């Protein structure tokens, strides 16, 4: 299997160089860009398997890159890579269309693994993201307004179970073993959660993010 191709978008030159060095030999880095304006044409030209995307950048941040690129190439896959672990940043970039979120403290091998996963169409949830999603969908059973689609706005018991295991620090294959299901099924659950997270118009999601902003 050939190495997945990657474009790195981050406004810190030092960080781009560091990621490049760490991923050397694990993925095929096609290029890097320091901001939204440079990133969009580059991504559209080289069409990498995965775009490693910083969340907070001048000129609209990662979400703006996703919006601009997916207008032309809706199939482009993004993995958010951020130093911020603030809930509103994480949820916002996922809802904009990123297929996963990892923090910048992740090791090179783990990052390469995450890139491969996203390249093959899976979702990548860090323990923290799993925690945020559980938080955002918590208490949902209480009162669901009629206009909300329960298919999109509630997590199934199994999905919650998988998310809890991710939050506890288990790898997909460990989760599969513990829950007596296949790794593919775990991936399917995570992808389903990602889809719900992106498509749900659940008012709790926005309200929840607003509350976090107020509380913290």
């Amino acid at each position, binding site marked *: 299997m050939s190495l997945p191709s990657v474009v790195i978008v981050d406004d810190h030159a030092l960080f781009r160089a560091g990621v490049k060095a760490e991923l050397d030999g694990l993925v095929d880095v096609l290029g890097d860009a320091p901001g939204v304006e440079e990133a969009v044409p580059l991504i559209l030209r080289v069409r990498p398997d995965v775009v490693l995307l910083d969340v907070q950048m001048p000129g609209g941040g990662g979400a703006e890159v996703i919006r601009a690129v997916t207008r032309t190439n809706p199939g482009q896959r993004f993995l958010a890579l951020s130093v911020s672990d603030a809930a509103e940043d994480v949820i916002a970039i996922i809802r904009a269309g990123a297929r996963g979120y990892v923090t910048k*403290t992740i090791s090179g091998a783990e990052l390469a693994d995450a890139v491969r996963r996203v390249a093959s169409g899976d979702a990548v949830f860090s*323990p923290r993201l799993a*925690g945020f999603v559980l938080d955002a969908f918590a208490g949902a059973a209480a009162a669901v307004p009629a206009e909300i689609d329960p298919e999109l706005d509630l997590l199934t018991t199994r999905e919650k179970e998988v998310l809890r295991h991710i*939050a*506890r620090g288990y790898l997909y294959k460990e989760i599969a073993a513990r829950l007596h299901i296949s790794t593919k099924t775990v991936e399917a659950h995570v992808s389903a959660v990602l889809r719900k997270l992106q498509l749900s118009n659940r008012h709790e999601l926005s309200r929840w993010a607003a509350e976090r902003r107020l509380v*913290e």
Partner: protein
Amino acid sequence: MAVVTVAPGQPAAPSVPPAPPLRRDPAHGVVGGVCAGLGRRLGIDPIILRVLFVVAAAAGGSGIAVYLLAWVAIPAEGEDSTPVTRLAGRRDTWLVAGGIVMLALSVLLLLRQWGIWFSDAFVWPVLLVAAGAALIWRQAGTRSEVPPAPPVPAQPRAAAAPADPAAPAAEEPLLARTGEVLGRLRTEAVGRSWLGIALVVVGGIAFLYLNGALVAARDVVLAVLVVLVALTVILAPWWLRLVRGLSAERAERIRSQERAELAAHLHDSVLQTLALVQRRADDPREVAALARRQERELRAWLNRGGPVTSTPKTLAVALEQAAAEVEETHGVQVDVVAVGDAPLDPRGEALVAATREAVVNAAKFAGGGPVSVFAEADDGHLQVFVRDRGPGFDPAAVPPDRRGVRESIVGRMERHGGRAEVHTAPGAGTEVELTMERA
């Protein structure tokens, strides 16, 4: 005037008090005792006042009006209230006042009709001034007559305080009420004084105007007004600029203060850590721990907008803090993910202590790998998972003298109505599961 021979030892001259309150003196008076009372108050022979009143009455009737006003407004000797104050005690004070004014007006108009009149330009302003003066004088009188809060209640209160704890409580409202009444009186008094002053001023100006004394002044006033308006027009933009400049300067000062605060914080934290990192560059573990600690501290500062409080209030914050401490002392990365939160009650504290112990164990025996802490708080219970990717162990092979897990984790949880389970196997890492029902 009567000179009183004072017997030795007797109180000095009770008949000539230093400043007797203004009272009518019907006993020594001719009509209502007004002149007698006024004379005693002012230390003038009442005859002089009587002559003045008669002249004023002959000159246009104003003397009569003022006399009548004084008759009703000044209490007689031995009385504490006048008909007026008695009336004024009622709710419809202004109605009464209006009635009196109408009465006085009708008397005056009658006098005017009869020709016992001086001149419109003189009588009306003088009346206004007289009414205003009466108000001010009365006010000056009542103010000195309002006694300061009597010291009498204070004394028994102090004496009774140890024996009867209810006494102060019972007196408190009374004192408060007295204060309230005094306050209202004071504001009313001030209001009346201003009304009096306004009446005097309006009367004075009306007098001057009606007698043509203002014709010369009007030109001066007009000139002054024009100059003032011109100055305002000239100076307004400059003044506005000054005000705007001041507020801009204040904003700038606040900004620079914030910048200084930020710089101070970065200096104390980030720059110090970077200096340490440079000096310890040969010890990657130490450098990683330093960086991690600094990251945690900076995040907390950014998120909470200030330094971390020393006493956590919620479970999530307490767990974060415990993790940070273990991370610092053992140099192992500890990631905390919390879903939901709960106030930190004794059960929560026990849970945090047990979690801390489990994290310490993981840091010691898991070979330096990262430790994951996952906490979930829902309505029913609190649950914490502490997981490491270390070698794991065989629970059955743990020697009985190793009391850490049994006492600090399992025992502590059970004492607070919770439970602890350890899932581990050689090569599979270790996970400690702590569960506590919510209080």
